[in-house]
């Protein structure tokens, strides 16, 4: 078999995706109009699949902060912090993140993916044991694999499934690392973190929580599901991203463990990656400031989430398990989900199509994510588009 032959199945999958209507992997946003609208296929389109939860990508103060940083510090850092130097703004952002969570340690990575890869691969080693939620993000799987640790999956959000495996491994699981997400990105369901924290205590394990989709969304002050569940003082490692609620790019790890300053030497995805650009750091810092000082953004986000969830539920669509800014519409067949996604785009609503095997329980989903920047009229338009597509597709669905 030739080196490139392994891509033949991928080519077949790509063809299948393109065969009926648009291909969700090839959507081009030709011009951004705002945090909630863009020109796609020459058409003005409402963006309902961006993860831009607080709608800060077009926040004027964030844009101004980025522009000032560009002028003051240039376009890029041109290298790794370990080899080419740390900018003072990197340290400032790390300090602000640590202070926000009330921890002594904060570290910034160039992407959210690198944050998970860099944290897990440095934390765990070949002698260690990691327990990973079965629905965890690919970056968590990859970080675990890179660590060389023995990795055991447990059933999604199933505390008893985790406990069984801890018990089965007995002494081997001493000092084990439990890896979960605060809110899961596909269906928007939250982890029972208080229960996981109890298990961590009972078995002397460590608890790692990826808050990529939770930061700025959950908790009284926006610190995520760890805050909402009241486990900030029990979690060992909180990892997050800047590319969702903070409208930027990058990732971070904060922790109550001061020893993690040594991460800077041990984390290869940190050591061997160019550090975040000055403009990226500046917009992130300003977005974090907005998150902390503008609680109305979170309130508006949840109003919009309830509005869209209620509207889609009233249409009789099958939705995910919780009301949240992530609203996934489930379909029995993948071609029906794809037909809905394509028709919605043609009606000027951009969503995310998610198909097996990248979805929980093999379900086919049209996933929406709401932002604080959506207007009530835009939410109504999204609901109306779903209604139009549902009405048009009922005969199709009834033939199956």
């Amino acid at each position: 078999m030739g080196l490139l032959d392994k891509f033949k199945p991928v080519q077949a999958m790509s063809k299948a995706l393109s065969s009926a209507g648009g291909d969700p992997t090839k959507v081009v946003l030709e011009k951004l109009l705002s945090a909630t609208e863009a020109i796609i296929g020459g058409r003005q389109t409402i963006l309902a699949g961006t993860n831009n939860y607080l709608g800060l990508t077009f926040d004027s103060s964030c844009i101004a902060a980025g522009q000032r940083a560009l002028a003051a510090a240039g376009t890029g850092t041109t290298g790794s912090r370990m080899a080419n130097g740390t900018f003072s703004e990197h340290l400032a952002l790390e300090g602000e993140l640590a202070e926000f969570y009330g921890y002594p340690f904060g570290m910034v990575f160039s992407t959210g993916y690198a944050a998970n890869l860099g944290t897990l691969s440095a934390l765990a080693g070949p002698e260690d044991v990691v327990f990973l939620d079965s629905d965890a993000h690919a970056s968590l799987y990859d970080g675990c694999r890179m660590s060389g640790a023995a990795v055991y999956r447990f059933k999604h959000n199933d505390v008893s499934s985790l406990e069984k495996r801890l018990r089965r491994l007995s002494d081997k699981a001493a000092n084990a690392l439990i890896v979960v997400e605060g809110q899961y990105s596909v269906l928007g369901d939250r982890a029972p973190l208080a229960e996981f924290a109890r298990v961590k205590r009972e078995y002397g394990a460590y608890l790692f929580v990826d808050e990529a989709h939770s930061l700025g969304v959950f908790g009284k002050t926006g610190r995520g599901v760890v805050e909402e569940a009241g486990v900030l003082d029990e979690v060992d490692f909180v990892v997050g991203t800047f590319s969702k609620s903070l409208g930027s790019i990058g990732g971070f790890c904060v922790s109550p463990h001061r020893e993690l300053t040594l991460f800077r030497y041990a984390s290869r995805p940190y050591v061997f990656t160019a550090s975040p650009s000055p403009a990226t750091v500046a917009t992130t810092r300003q977005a974090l400031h907005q998150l902390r000082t503008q609680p109305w953004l979170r309130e508006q986000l949840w109003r919009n989430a309830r509005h869209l969830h209620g509207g889609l539920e009233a249409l009789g669509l099958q939705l995910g398990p919780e009301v949240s800014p992530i609203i996934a519409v489930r379909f029995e067949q993948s071609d029906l989900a794809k037909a809905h996604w394509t028709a919605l785009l043609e009606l000027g609503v951009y969503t995310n199509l998610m198909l097996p095997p990248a979805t929980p329980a093999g379900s086919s989903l049209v996933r929406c994510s709401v932002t604080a920047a959506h207007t009530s009229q835009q939410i109504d338009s999204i609901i109306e588009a779903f209604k139009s597509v549902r009405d048009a597709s009922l005969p199709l669905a009834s033939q199956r």
Partner: protein
Amino acid sequence: MASDSAEIEQQLVEILVAFLGGARDISRDTDLIADLHLESVQVMEFVVEVEDHYDIAIDLDTLSEARTVSDLAAIVAGAGGA
């Protein structure tokens, strides 16, 4: 306490048939991916069922060595599956 290897293979076939939701032509030599066309995620879901059945834990690296029912049976036996 490990069961006889052939016995574990037979039990795995039964668990696999139930996991797939019905009768399939499955033997000890059936390749989970090449013959049954399972996605890697589905294989991992199936193994969670196997772990619970035998009250064992199988790490992902070890699992990656298993292609057939027979391979998995050997892993189960090695992990103390009874």
